[in-house]
């Protein structure tokens, strides 16, 4: 009993002392913050010497590769901006925080960036669920928050139709890829009779299939067959045989690479020669292993960007990136890089580092030309931008074309 008591006392002393130390540390850091803010009281500080941009990113955990890629891209952009004299003469400081790929940690990280670091703007997490977990904080502290790769429509638009005022994104939204695929099928491939084979267990795939269908019908095409599968299926031959007998000129297969790889392989084995197309869910080296390089010929995907795009600015970015990190930039690198420039553009047009002014500027963004496309922001805070169509040639992705919305 006494032992327990003394343990308890020790624990409380320990806790109290650690609290004091923590509070002191917080004090000293906020003092530092205010001293550079030269007395300004608003978050971010209107007259501060540096502009702080927070990065609430998945640096560890399940999708660490997404967050780390965005961080690399963002750091390259900030390095370039600072070398060119900063934003309105102020240097930019990047404050990355690891949200461990978890919703609750993403909220905590957003609170830390808003209250302790007092950032001017934040780069929101990479995955849609984590972005949603930070939306309320962004709105509450009026800190403009931009996600590089959260593609779900409900990141910016709530279920009741209201908009998350301070949340924006650099990437296009899921249904848009369906529209791009439909336009590509009609305009580039001249397909009239198309089929859809969608993953029925994923909202992402169902959303893509619905928007593809709507757009292809608007384009005057006909959906001659519509079939579905569920994740983890392995035998697609019977459904593919059924699709084949409908004689489509083009098959749209929204889904993830694990099943798509098998579908492509089995479709070619059954003698389906029609072009097959998917979206960014296909983008994985495993797809090539599963389907085989030969079967993947005459298949296309929509993606955010391609490192093989011959465009000069893109090639400039690719060279700069490769010299800094000695690897070829992927779509997440490019989106992270663009997100920083998106924020920079808004701060410059706002002419201040006030959250509401930047928010307004972000919402009014027009014809901003970045690596992943030229875009304007629509009333739902989604960028209206082009998507890149890639073609698989002997197992390698090749740049095919850019499709504008």
């Amino acid at each position, binding site marked *: 009993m006494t032992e327990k008591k003394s343990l308890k006392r020790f624990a409380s002393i320990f806790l109290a002392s650690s609290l004091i130390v923590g509070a002191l540390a917080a004090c000293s850091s906020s003092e530092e913050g205010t001293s550079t803010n030269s007395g300004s009281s608003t978050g971010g500080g209107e007259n501060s010497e540096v502009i702080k941009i927070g990065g609430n990113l998945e640096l560890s955990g399940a999708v660490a590769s997404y967050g780390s890629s965005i961080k690399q891209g963002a750091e390259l952009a900030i390095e370039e901006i600072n070398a060119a004299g900063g934003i309105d003469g102020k240097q930019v400081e990047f404050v990355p925080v690891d949200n461990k790929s978890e919703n609750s940690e993403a909220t905590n990280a957003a609170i830390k960036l808003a209250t302790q670091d007092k950032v001017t703007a934040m780069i929101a997490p990479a995955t849609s669920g984590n972005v949603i977990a930070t939306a309320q904080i962004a709105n509450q502290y009026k800190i403009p928050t931009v996600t590089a790769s959260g593609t779900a429509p409900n990141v910016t638009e709530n279920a009741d139709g209201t908009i998350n005022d301070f949340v924006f994104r650099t990437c296009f939204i899921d249904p848009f890829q369906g529209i791009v695929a439909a336009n590509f099928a009609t305009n580039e491939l001249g397909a009239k009779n198309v089929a859809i084979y969608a993953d*029925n267990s994923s909202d992402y795939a169902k959303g893509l299939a619905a928007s593809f269908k709507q757009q292809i019908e608007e384009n005057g095409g006909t959906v001659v067959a519509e079939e579905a599968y569920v994740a983890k299926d*392995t*035998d697609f*031959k*019977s*459904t593919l*045989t059924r699709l084949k007998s409908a004689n489509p000129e083009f098959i749209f297969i929204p889904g993830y690479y694990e099943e798509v790889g*098998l579908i492509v392989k089995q479709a070619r*084995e059954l003698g389906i020669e029609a072009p097959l197309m998917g979206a960014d869910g296909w983008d994985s080296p495993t797809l090539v292993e599963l389907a085989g390089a030969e079967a993947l010929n005459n298949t296309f995907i929509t993606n955010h960007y391609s490192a093989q795009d011959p465009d000069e600015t893109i090639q400039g970015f690719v060279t700069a990136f490769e010299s800094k990190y000695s690897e070829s930039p992927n779509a997440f690198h490019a989106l992270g890089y663009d997100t920083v420039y998106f924020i920079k553009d808004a701060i410059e047009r706002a002419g201040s580092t006030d959250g509401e002014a930047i928010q307004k500027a972000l919402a009014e963004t027009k014809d901003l030309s970045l690596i992943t496309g030229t875009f304007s922001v629509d009333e739902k805070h989604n960028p209206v931008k082009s998507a890149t169509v890639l073609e698989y040639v002997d197992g390698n992705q090749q740049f095919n074309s850019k499709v504008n919305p």
Partner: protein
Amino acid sequence: MEWLQQLVNGISLGSIYALIALGYTMVYGIIKLINFAHGDVFMLGAFIGFYAIARWDLGFFPALIISMLLCAIIGVIIERVAYKRLRNATRIAALITAIGVSLLIEYTVIFFRGASPEAYPEVLPNTSISILGASISSQSIMILAVTIVLMILLQFIVHKTKIGKAMRAVSHDADAARLMGINVDNTISATFAIGSALAGAAGVIFGVYYTRIEPLMGVLPGLKAFVAAVLGGIGSIPGAMVGGLVLGVVETIVSALGYSLWRDAAAFVILILILILKPSGIFGKNAREKV
């Protein structure tokens, strides 16, 4: 010629179910145990075959034989470690143990190599042959041929060899067989070895045919093969073959009619119907339950 094509699809799928169902039915026939770990032996077979092909650069047939041998050994180990001491326990205790072994195998594999899928290398030439408008890949012909050869071999072992005779005797009446001087334990081990070897073969065939393998791949085919075994009459070897093929064709027909999302449900509706209408299955004997 869509229907001919669908029939080919169904038979390819069904022959894999049949190979797995054989192991279920043999084990059930001899010790009245539904060996739920059987689907996981199938998964281990697929991975052994994968490593044999991808890491040791072996061809299809050496990989098939290595996988069958190792799976036979694994099957015997499972029987000796987990099931032997439960031979006189209640059937529910043995059944629960089987589920435990199944989970143990699945998560041991995940522990050592993670849950990510693996793509089978292409070991068999894959050209499509067009017969009457149906496109049949050379792989599916090869797989069907291997399956038929294995089934004939099994029939030969069960009906023409001494161990087969012992297996039939033990399955008929284990006590009487022991009185006749048959080593019951060894016979049961031999049954597990043969059944697991067939599951290993099915694993390699599955890998070559469907490309993607992963640690939980045995769960659904295992359950489907169980349905196939019940459909054919559990305990009956020809029943497992016919049950597997029928199930494969039925699933294919369900997809072919445009109800692909109902395919898995169809298999289990069959199970329910069989259990209600004819619990002994197509080939099952209406044997009196021995008490």
